[in-house]
């Protein structure tokens, strides 16, 4: 078996759990997705998780406001969705393999529903699991990545079609 495509696995895992309705309807998401040491992949990584949020919420992103930038080694997003949902997403470069100041790949997801919350924390790769951290993504992800880049360039929220 090859390396796990981590973000794809994560998207499906959340989707399956949401389907059992234990937290009601998902309304907000906080995600910290710190998987890669290449700052050039920060935006695509965030665009990929934003695309997953679109499916978790069953709602289209309306606006994206981005802060930071690849050269600063982190990017943060505040996204509003057409159904009223909110996502705050961030990604930063991974510098080490453990301990304060030298964390390895790490993930925090807090999915807030109108009847409960779902929290997920992981250190992918820490227990020997082979994981492919580089996100794949289709046209939606690319569109979101362009919106993030535009927001970073203009310093304001970008509206998606």
């Amino acid at each position, binding site marked *: 078996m090859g390396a796990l495509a981590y973000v794809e696995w994560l998207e499906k895992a959340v989707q399956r759990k949401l389907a059992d309705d234990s*937290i*009601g*309807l998902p*309304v*907000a998401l*906080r995600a*910290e997705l*710190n998987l890669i040491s290449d700052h050039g992949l920060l935006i695509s990584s965030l665009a990929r998780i934003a695309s997953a949020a679109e499916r978790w919420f069953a709602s289209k992103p*309306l*606006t994206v*406001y981005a*802060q*930071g930038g690849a050269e*600063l*080694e*982190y990017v*943060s997003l*505040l996204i*509003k969705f*057409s*159904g*009223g*949902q*909110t996502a*705050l997403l*961030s990604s*930063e470069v991974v*510098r*080490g393999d453990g301990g*304060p*100041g*030298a*964390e390895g790949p*790490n993930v*925090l997801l*807090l999915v*807030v*529903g*109108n*009847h*409960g*919350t779902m*929290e997920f924390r992981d250190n992918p790769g820490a227990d020997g699991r082979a994981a492919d951290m580089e996100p794949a993504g289709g046209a939606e992800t690319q569109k979101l990545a362009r919106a993030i880049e535009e927001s970073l360039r203009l*310093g*304001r*929220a970008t509206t998606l079609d």
Partner: protein
Amino acid sequence: MPDKPRFGVLLVTGGMTHQEDYGLGFQADPRCKVIGVTDERGVDRRRAALNRRLAEQMQVPLFPDLDDALRRPDVHLASVCSEFERRARLGRRCAEAGKHVYMDKPLATTMEDANQLAQAVRRRGVRSQMFTQVGAPFARRAKQIVDSGVLGELKAIHCDLLFAKGRPGSAPLGKPRKEHYPPKQFTFPDAKREIWTTTVYSLTLIRWLTGRRDFRSVYATSANYFFEEHYRRDVEDFGAMALTLDGGMTATITAGRIGWQSHRSSGPNFTRLFGSQGSVLIDGHTPRFEVASDQPPWTPPPRDPDDPMSFWSSTGKKAGRRPKLDWYKPETVPTRSDQAMFLDSIEQGKESEVTVADGATATEAMLAAYQSAATGEVVSLPLAG
């Protein structure tokens, strides 16, 4: 024989406010004597009765006129927990009377009120403090890490503070909330603006961690996700903010009230610090023991018609609200009450860790958040006008 208390404390506004907790905090400190409960003349009958009730519970006198009480020479400091719209005005009267002021959060509902209070404190040379969480163990841990330099230069801070209170699931979903600016009303019996009452903790934490860096811009959104009460009052139960600070630093915040059973403890509390040399996630609920047993599961308290969202300690006590026991968090750093920290600052003749000037800065960022949520624009600080 213990020393005679050095500080006489006047409690301004009583029951069904956080004075129920702050008053006890001062009363528990051997440096203090609570002189009495007071309020301005002309408060309504309900407020007058609640003031009397706290005075009786604490077994201290009730003074019906704030100005008379402030003339007492045995009053050295005032703890002000009046309703949001009255708070800064009464705090200012206390400061102008030469008393140190301990303020509930948030400080004021307008920048004019906040600035006038800060000016009165400065002009009279009294000490001030606004209640926050900077004394909490998670905040102390964060400060130690930042000050150690292990993270290098801070670039970004992410804060999540969501309170597990209330009975959720009654707010209609499906479309974005329409926010209004400026916000008009703040005090309701069954709803609190959550950008107002919760982001204030994260905003003050961020400034405290960064050596009082000022906020330069705010982008925000507000929502109604959980409670019919908030929806009916047209105030948000959830908010998210993205801020820039002096020096190019950024911060993000989520804040809200999410429901009694939406967390195994008091609610998610995360602080992530990202610096030029490294980063760390501080979970306000770690280290912890996670306990599973055949004890009956925790259940929310019954709904109190006088306090449907269970804002206040007295109604929680009356309803038999039980603590959640699934997570046990042993003390990691010595805790010191916020009231004791204020007394320390007075005794030591130094500025408190969160002054009313800091509270005014947080007020400005929160007002900017409402403006941003209403317009969809990034709002620059300081606010115009």
